[in-house]
C-alpha cells in the first residue's frame, strides 16, 4: 500500500489527478471546499493505491506527495 497526501491549501480541484489515476481511486470531494473555494482532490480507497505517482506527476499545482 502507498500513501497519497494532497496539500488541500494549494489544490485547485482541476481533477487532472482523477483522470490520471490508473486505479481510479482519486476523486474530488464535492461535499467540502478549501479556503480558495475549490472542491479538493483526495484518495478515496488508499488501500488500493499502488504508489505509481501518476496523480502527482499530472498535478499542475504540485499539491500531491506520494509515499510507498
Amino acid at each position, binding site marked *: 500500500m*502507498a*500513501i497519497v497526501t494532497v496539500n488541500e*491549501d*494549494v489544490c*485547485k*480541484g*482541476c*481533477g*487532472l489527478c482523477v*483522470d*490520471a489515476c490508473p486505479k481510479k481511486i482519486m476523486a474530488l470531494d464535492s461535499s467540502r471546499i478549501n479556503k480558495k473555494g*475549490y472542491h479538493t482532490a483526495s484518495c478515496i480507497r488508499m488501500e488500493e493505491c499502488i*504508489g505509481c*505517482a*501518476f496523480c*502527482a*506527476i*499530472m*498535478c*499542475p*499545482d*504540485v499539491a*500531491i*506527495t*506520494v*509515499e*510507498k
Partner: protein
Amino acid sequence: MAVVFAKTKMLCEKPFHYCPGCTHGIIHRLVAEALDELGIGETAIGVAPVGCAVFAYDYFACDMMEAAHGRAPAVATGIKRVCPDKAVFTYQGDGDLASIGTAEIIHAATRGEKITTIFVNNAIYGMTGGQMAPTTLPGQVTTTSPYGRDTSHCGWPVKVSEMLSTLTGPAYIARVSVHDVPNIKKAKAAIKKAFQLQMEGKGFTLVEVLSTCPTNWGKTPQEALMWVKESMIPAYPLGVFKDVTAQPATPEGGAQ
C-alpha cells in the same frame, strides 16, 4: 516508507497563481526538477517573461530576473556572458517568444548562446485574456479572431522548433507535450538534456512544450488535454528537431 514523489526544493513554497488545470505548473515542476537533479539549480539564474508566467520569479528557488515582453533571450545573454559557468534559462510563452520576441530568440539561437529556453506553446495569449497568438491554429477562435483564425487574413502559425532548427547555433531543439503522464516523462527528459548540453557548452538549447489554457480555450482541464492531443500535436508534431550529440544527426521529429 519511502517518498515516491514530493515537491522539489527548487520550487518555492508560494502556490502557483495559474488557473485550475493549466499545465504551466507541470512545466515549472519539470524545469525545477531538472535543475535539481543535475545539481545546477542552486546557482542557476532564470529569466521570467511577460505573460502568464510573469511571476515565475516567485516560483523558481534561484536568482531570477524579470524581462520585458520578448526580451528574455537578450537578458539571459547578458547574464550568461557575466556568469558563463552558471545555468541560465528563460521561460517564455508563445506571444512573448514567437511574436514580440522573434528577433531576440532567433539571434540568441544563431549565436549559439549557451542558455536553455523553455518555450511554452498554448496557441493563445493567456494573461491578456485569450487573444490570437502567432501559434493560434487556423480556424481557432480567440478574442481577436472571433470568426476563427483566417489564414488568408493573418497568416499561418509560427513553427518555432522547426524554424530554429535550421540554424547552426542551436545544440538541441525538441518539442514535447504534457497532456499525459508518458509525455510528461518525455518532456522532463528533454528539458534535462537541454540543461545538460548547455552546461557542456554545446550551444543554444530550446524545449518547446505544448501546454493548455482551459480558461481561454473555453474548455474543462480534461477537454483541454484532449485538445492538445487531437488538435495541437497534429499541427505541432512532437520530437527532437536538432541534437548535436545525436548519431546520426538527422532530426527524428522533422519527419513526423
